[in-house]
Structure formats: C-alpha cells, structure tokens
C-alpha cells in the first residue's frame, strides 16, 4: 500500500509566504512602534537590509551563474548616483504626499534599470571571458566606473556627480519599511526567476557550460541576463543606500566594497539565498553590537573568510535554501510518505 506523497498546492504556498511576509512586517512595525527597537537600531536594520539586497543580487552572478564578478560595487555606485541625482533633480524633499511616493518609486526603478543597462554593456564583452579573466575584467570595469564618477564633472563642465568631494544633500527617503519592502520584492523576483525555466538554464550553465550549450541553451543570452539581473538589484540597493546615507563619495564604491559584498555571499554559501540573507544581516549587525571591538572587526572578517574557505569551501549554508512549504510538507508526510519510501527501497532489493 503505497500512499501518494502529499504536497501543498501552489496557491496555498503563495498564501503561506504572503502571511509570513505580512507577519514579518507586523512584527517589525510592532517592535518599532512599541519602542523595542530604537531609532539607531532601525538605521542599522535598514543598512542590513541594503546589504541583504546587495548580497542576494551578487549571489545571482556568483552562486547561480557560477562566475566571480569583482565589480559589484560599480553597479551599486551607478544605482546610487542615478537615484541621488534624480531625487535631487526633482527636488523630492519638496514634493508632498503621493508625488513624493511616486518620485521614490521612480528613483528606485530608474536606478535599477540604469544599473542593468550598465550590466548588459559590461556583461556582453566581459562574459566572453571565463573564470579568472572574467573576475579581472569586472574588477577593471568597477574601477573605471569609480574613476569616471570621480572625474566626469571636469569633462562635462557642470556639477553632475560632485566629483571627488561627493554628491551631497540627497533627500534621505530611506526608512526601514521601504528597505524591507525592497528586500522582499528582490528576494521574491530573484526566487521566481530562478524557479522558472530561465533560472534552470542559468543553473545549467553553472553546472556545465559546454553541456548546457549542447542542450540548446543560449549561454551568452542567459549569462548576460543573469548578470544584468544581478546589476539591477545592486542598483536598487545603491539607490536605497543613497537615500540612507544622504551623501555619496566615489571612494566608498571601490574594490573593497565589492569584496565586502562577496564576503557576505561566500560566507553564507554560494547559491543559497537564505545564506546570503543571514550572513549579510549578521555581518552588518554584529559589528554594530560589538562597537568596542571596532579595530578587530576587519581582521576577524578576513580570518573568518579564510577559515570558512579552508574547512567548508561551499560556505556555511552550502546550497541549502529555506522553504516554509517544504517543512510543512515534511510534517504532512510524516506517516504516509515514509511507507512509500520504504516500499521503494524494498523494490530495489
């Protein structure tokens, strides 16, 4: 008597996830309203959210596509400057009510789109190369973006990016709820794309590029797609960052920032979204909690990176991804599925 494996139908899965997300919103709203989380902690949480988006977006290129781009901060810079310049241009802080909300929405989308365009522009030539050379060329592009932002004002002859002293007085629109919403939307979109046949194609390229190509997958197209998807959300995160900090300096978006994002992804586990989320939050919040040990922070970071690589090269979570529905399904199948599995095992013998 083999019982069929009980599964949760898709609409119910969506319902479960919606309820979970709403509960998360409610939890944070309650904690903030109730004064359990003070203003300072809220800013730290916002920063953690921004880092989560950065890590999750880099994870698309690193974990799912299997490449190693070292210029993620460049895309973030593009998004941050796009958002900052746009919001300053429309004088967002003077707008009221719905117009203000619209301006922010447009800024976020625009930052993502411009960053994605840069992603395509850089991806098309860069993705012709493989492995280390791809890493180097993206590193080069990242540095070039930074140098251009730094010097473009002299060429244009008017103030555009603010040069080396930076872009100042950007309307600081970022609050915790906007960040949380963006985190949810980014994770959702990336998750849905990765579960679609486009996502499967990207994973196939990671597993074996030649095999994928001979199975009829247009590898160039999907590589550029994954790359620009990654750039898009880096741009959104950059825009949020601009609204969080209020002023941008080109040197914040150097090689080191790219590495910092990479550390988040690698420690969490390349190819694991929950890993990226966890490590980005922990690595943002922990140093704030341990202010006293500020000096040792970066040393600890790098040591952790080396130790994790030596003892668990796939990262802390490996490729494991969290799924509420899967856990619920396990509960549902506690009795029946086991017998089915046993029956199957019996067949083999």
């Amino acid at each position: 008597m083999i019982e069929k494996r009980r599964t949760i139908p898709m609409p119910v899965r969506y319902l479960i996830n919606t309820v979970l997300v709403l509960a998360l919103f409610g939890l944070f709203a309650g904690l903030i309203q109730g004064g359990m989380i003070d203003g300072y902690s809220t800013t730290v949480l916002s920063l953690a959210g921004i880092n989560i988006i950065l890590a999750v977006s880099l994870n698309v290129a690193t974990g799912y596509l299997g490449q190693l781009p070292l210029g993620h901060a460049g895309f973030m810079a593009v998004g941050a400057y796009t958002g900052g310049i746009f919001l300053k241009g429309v004088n967002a802080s003077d707008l009221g009510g719905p117009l203000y909300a619209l301006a922010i929405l447009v800024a976020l989308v625009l930052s993502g789109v411009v960053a994605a365009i840069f992603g395509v522009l850089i991806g098309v030539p860069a993705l012709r190369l493989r492995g280390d050379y791809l890493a180097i060329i993206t590193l080069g592009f990242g540095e070039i973006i930074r140098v251009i932002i730094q010097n473009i004002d002299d060429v244009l002859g008017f103030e555009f990016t603010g040069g080396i002293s930076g872009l100042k007085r950007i309307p600081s629109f970022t609050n915790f709820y906007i960040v949380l919403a963006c985190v949810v939307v980014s994770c959702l979109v990336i998750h849905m794309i990765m579960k679609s046949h486009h996502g499967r194609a990207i994973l196939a390229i990671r597993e074996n590029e030649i095999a994928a190509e001979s199975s009829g997958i247009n590898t160039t197209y999907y590589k550029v797609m994954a790359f620009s998807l990654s750039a898009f959300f880096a741009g959104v995160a950059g825009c949020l960052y601009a609204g969080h900090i209020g002023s941008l300096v080109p040197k914040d978006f150097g090689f080191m920032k790219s590495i910092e994002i990479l550390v988040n992804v690698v420690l969490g586990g390349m190819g694991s979204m929950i890993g990226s989320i966890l490590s980005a939050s922990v690595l943002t919040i922990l140093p704030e909690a341990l202010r006293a040990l500020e000096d040792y922070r970066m040393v600890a970071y790098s040591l952790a990176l080396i130790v994790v690589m030596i003892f668990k090269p796939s990262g802390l979570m490996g490729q494991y991804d969290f799924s509420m529905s899967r856990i619920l399904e396990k509960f549902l199948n506690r009795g029946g599925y086991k017998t089915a599995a046993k029956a199957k095992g019996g067949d083999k013998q």
Partner: protein
Amino acid sequence: MSLISQIISQLVNGLQSGSIYALVALGYSMVYGIILLLNFAHGDIIMVGAYVVFYAMTSFSLHPLAAVLLAVIACTLLGTVIEKIAYTPLRSAPRLSLLITAIGVSFLLENGAQLVFGAGAKNVPTFIEGGIQVGGVYLGYVSVVTILVSVASMIVLTFLVQKTKLGKAMRAVSEDMGAAQLMGISLNRTISFTFAVGSALAGIGSVLYVSAYPQASPTMGSMLGLKAFVAAVLGGIGSIPGAMIGGFMIGLIEALVTAVGLSTWKDGVVFAVLIVVLLVKPTGILGRKMTEKV
C-alpha cells in the same frame, strides 16, 4: 629641446615605475603559472616589506643595505608561510575557493597591518639621494638604481627558471602537475620555492618602491598590487617575459597619461587598456591560448 627633455624625463619616470610593476607582476605571473591562483595577497607582501624597511631604518637604525636585505628575507618568509598555511590545504579545492582565500589573506594582511602599525602613513627615510644632469634631463639616482636593479633581477630570474634544476621543476609543474609528480618532482617543494622567489621579487619591489615614494601605509599594497596584477594579465599571465612587458607598458602608459595632464584618469586608463587587450586577445599579449576539452 625642453619638450624633448620633458618627454625623456617622463619616459624615465615611466620606466622606473614600470620596472617596479614588472617585478611585482613577475610574482603574480609565476604563482599563476604554477597553481593557477591569482595571489591577491602579493600586493600586501610589498606593504609588509615597506614596513620592515621603515622599522629597520628608524627603530633599529640599521644600515640601508641591511634594511633592504631584511625586507627581502621577511617578504620571502611571509610568502612561503602564507602558501603553507592558507593555500596548501586547498590544493584540491575548487579554484574559486582558492581565489577567495587569497582575497581573505590580502584583507587580513591589510587590516592586521592597520592594527599593528596604525592607520597613518609612515615616512621612510630616503636612502638614495641626488642625481645627475645628462644633457637637459635630470636623472635621479633612484630611477637609475630602480631600473638597473629590476633588469638585473629579471636576468637572474630568467637564468634561474631556464638553467637550474629547480627552474626546470617549476616549468614542469606548470606544464602538467600530475606528470611532473610522477617524474619524481616534489610538488610541495617546487610550489613553495615558486612562492619564495615571487615574494623575494616583491621584497625587492617594495624596497625600490619606498626609495621612490618614501611612505609606508597599510593600504599601499592594494593599488600597487592591483596595477602589477593588471600588468601580469596584460602581458599574459603565466608568462615571465609577458609580465616584464606588461609592467613596463603600464608604467609608460601611466607616465604618458600624467604627462598629458590627466593624472586623475590614470587608474581608469590603465584598466581600460587592460579591458581592450583582453577583449582582443583574451589571454594577454604573450599568453598561451587554452583550449577546453569536453
């Protein structure tokens, strides 16, 4: 006359920084050639070398030559120790893990130096002073010494790689690790030796660097390393003459860009040249073309 002398003096500047880049690039290239690792920590070895020179000359008031020797020895030791601790356990791990470990080591050295030596830059006393006037061109002794020392090191290195037994072992390991091992070549010894030679060159590079730009700071290695690394890739990573050509090219390009008055664009131009070269010739100027087998 003044234009020509200006061009020549910029050329000398370019050759000077180019030879430093070339020395550092050689380290990158040799390590890549043997274990296919981009050793990100290489630039930071230079930084440690610079601090050794600084402390040897100020705190212990050693003779400059002793300081130089000490720096080279310290760099060599550091390079081999890093290889033993961080890279050897990962020899069979995926390449990506190895690369990320290298980034981690680089981070560790930079932040460790910041912790130990402080974040501020230290002024290293100059030990090569003066210069000569040749025609209308002023030649600093520093430039002359830098260029001569690097050319000499490159000649020694070429001899080492081409004519000695260890050099032969190095070439064999980079050709085919498994086959080399079957021929009785000790992998560990050869790889350690490669790291030692590369780091010694970085040590020489660091001494030449501080004699030209007399400052030591925790992050000095990162940009220098990055540029040297670009030089190695430009020339064809894994190729020794390629690294030399790449180094001199980067130095001359930088001097040229500075001479035209666009010094703020210097870094951007260097990377742009790299990208163009890689797109035209994906393995660099002298790199071997890799064919992929299914």
